[in-house]
């Protein structure tokens, strides 16, 4: 009965796709020359990347004085961007791991690119960890490495060391998870290259990266076991990572940072921003690589629901913060939050509220949820809003803390802004390369649901009133 699925469920694969069609559709863009659209996108991204390289080198060469930070505000755009990117990363793991555990089949056509997004986002995040350091050339010191000083180790009390462990674990585990999933699909490309006798580099490249995958019953048995356990590990991992990132702030004593609700609030925010980014990317991808049949309105609808829920959770978190600040009666806390909403950074705070809390509410209406254009717009809004959330938390808390004598303001320099825009370039360059050379949809896994969730299958069911089976 493995194939049975209620005909009432929306099909996840449209346009009567057969197994072979899937292979064709997903391999075609990889085997053909890239489209004009791809070239255009890639050029823009590459220019941003170049700008990133320029700004980062200037910073590394001259010093952090090239940024707008000062004695009071030690972190600003750097850590804002770091948290923003890490947050975005989380959706990937979430989709592939959590939805796998919940057996959500609609994950299958989006998890591959979502995981890719995770990895690239974490790379961007890591770049900020390094570039925000005063002495990036010793960026490896926070790792517990034996060194010439013998007894000189790291401080396991520091949330930053927790971060180092969390981020590196998260990155490497996501990477193997992603790669393991890719192996069978590489095998597909390998065999096609041989069958169609494509360029030799393809043969050798794809046969190398597919690690000699056969697809024997035992292979698949182990493959599924590994995926399941990795999913089981990644779920608490992804939660722990953003919990720990939030602890960078929560374990400090700065009013506005020293907040116990940060872990759940950050995790919700991460899912929120992550799904928004997935939307942004997939809406572009399905257009560029015309994959409408696999990334359907239904998928978009599902993700919009997640965005709406998490957005509301984040909204509750904002309100809770205010309540606690008032209820605690701690003058520093209460001032911090009054200042947040009405002080010098009110604009940042209210753009955050508008983008994160108000804009997703539109998804209560199905019409909105299923409109691609609107979804795209809102997803951009959410990305902006979540950036501002981190900016508000970091800068508006630091700029007026305990002693009024040290109160200050932060004004970004072109270098700071450049590095942020540049990091977007870095991200999209990586993503576009991925879209060009890697299968953006997990073919092998998707094929498992052809018999249950494709239009073809549904038709078949209607006709025969029974589950599809061999002719």
């Amino acid at each position, binding site marked *: 009965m493995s194939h049975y699925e209620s005909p009432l469920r929306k099909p996840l694969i449209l346009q009567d796709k*057969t*197994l*072979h069609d899937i*292979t064709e559709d997903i391999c075609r863009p990889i085997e053909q020359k890239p489209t004009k659209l791809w070239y255009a996108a890639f050029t823009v991204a590459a220019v941003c990347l170049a700008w990133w390289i320029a700004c980062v080198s200037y910073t590394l060469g001259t010093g952090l004085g090239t940024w707008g930070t000062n004695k009071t505000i030690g972190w600003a755009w750097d850590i804002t961007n770091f948290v923003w990117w890490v947050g975005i990363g989380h959706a990937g793991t979430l989709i592939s791991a959590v939805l796998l555990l919940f057996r959500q089949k609609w994950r299958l056509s989006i998890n591959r690119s979502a995981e890719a997004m995770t990895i690239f986002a974490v790379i961007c995040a890591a770049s900020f960890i390094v570039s925000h350091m005063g002495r990036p050339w010793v960026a490896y010191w926070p790792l*517990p490495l034996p060194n010439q000083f013998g007894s000189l*180790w*790291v401080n*396991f*009390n520091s949330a930053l*060391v*927790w971060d180092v*462990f*969390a981020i*590196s*674990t998260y990155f*490497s*585990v996501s990477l*193997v998870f992603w790669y393991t999933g890719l192996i*069978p699909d590489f*095998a*597909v490309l*390998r*065999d*096609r290259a041989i*069958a169609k006798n494509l360029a030799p580099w393809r043969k050798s490249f794809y*046969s*190398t*990266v*597919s*690690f*000699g*995958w*056969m*697809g*024997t*019953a*035992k*292979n*698949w*048995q*182990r*493959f599924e*076991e*590994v995926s*399941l*356990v*990795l999913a089981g*590990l*990644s779920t*608490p*991992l992804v939660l*722990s990572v953003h919990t*720990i990132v939030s602890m960078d702030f929560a374990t400090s004593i700065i009013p506005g940072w020293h907040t116990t609700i940060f872990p759940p609030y950050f995790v919700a925010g991460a899912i929120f921003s992550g799904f928004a980014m997935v939307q942004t990317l997939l809406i572009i991808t399905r257009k560029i690589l015309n994959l409408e049949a696999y990334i359907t309105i239904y998928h978009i609808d599902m993700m919009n629901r997640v965005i709406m829920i998490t957005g509301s959770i984040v909204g509750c978190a904002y309100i809770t913060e205010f309540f606690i600040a008032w209820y605690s009666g701690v003058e520093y806390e209460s001032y911090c939050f009054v200042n947040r909403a009405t002080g010098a950074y009110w604009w940042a705070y209210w753009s955050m509220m508008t983008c994160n809390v108000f804009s997703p509410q539109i998804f209560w209406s199905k019409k909105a949820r299923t409109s691609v254009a609107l979804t795209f717009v809102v997803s951009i809004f959410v990305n902006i809003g979540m950036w501002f959330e981190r900016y508000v938390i970091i800068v508006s808390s630091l700029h007026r803390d305990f002693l009024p004598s040290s109160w200050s303001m932060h004004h970004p320099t072109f270098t700071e802004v450049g590095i942020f825009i540049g990091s977007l370039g870095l991200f999209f360059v990586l993503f576009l390369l991925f879209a060009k050379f890697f299968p953006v949809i997990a073919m*092998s*896994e998707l*094929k*498992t649901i052809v*018999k249950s969730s494709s239009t073809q299958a549904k038709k078949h069911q209607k006709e025969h009133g029974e589950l599809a*089976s*061999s002719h």
Partner: protein
Amino acid sequence: MSKYIYAIFNDDDAVMHSIKPLRSKGIKIKDVISPFPIHGLDHELGLNPSRLSTCAFIYGCIGLSLISLLIWYTMIYDWPMEIGGKPNFAYWKNVLAFIPVSFEGTVLCTAHGMVITFYLRSKLLPGVTAPHIHDRITDDHFAMKVLVKDPSKEQEIMNELRAHGAVEFVA
């Protein structure tokens, strides 16, 4: 002198449902190669359940003990320091601060340990090349690996297989 032949199917259900009857007819089905996981196939073939999850657990335990040892050695034993007035001179007193890293360390070892085991056990390594049995074996076709002991019986077996949905044969 015995040999293997690959019966190519084009439908996963056909493969699934033909295994039992074929075996009952004494045909030696050694393996099935498919472009995607077919659920329950391992039962049909009578494979032993995978023990990777057990390995994972063991790796986890190793990871936890290693990371805890590192923390204890560096923070408590080798060179205790006064850090923000925290009780850095007894592991158990300061353990709260060590939980996050301990957890991450555990996950790190578990995940990588297991994946590496999987790759090695399944001989999945860069440079390993797989035999190219059939063009569409990773696309939409399925191969059943059958052992033919007695060449004279080959035709008979093929017919049997064809009857059960095999569309092609590769020697």
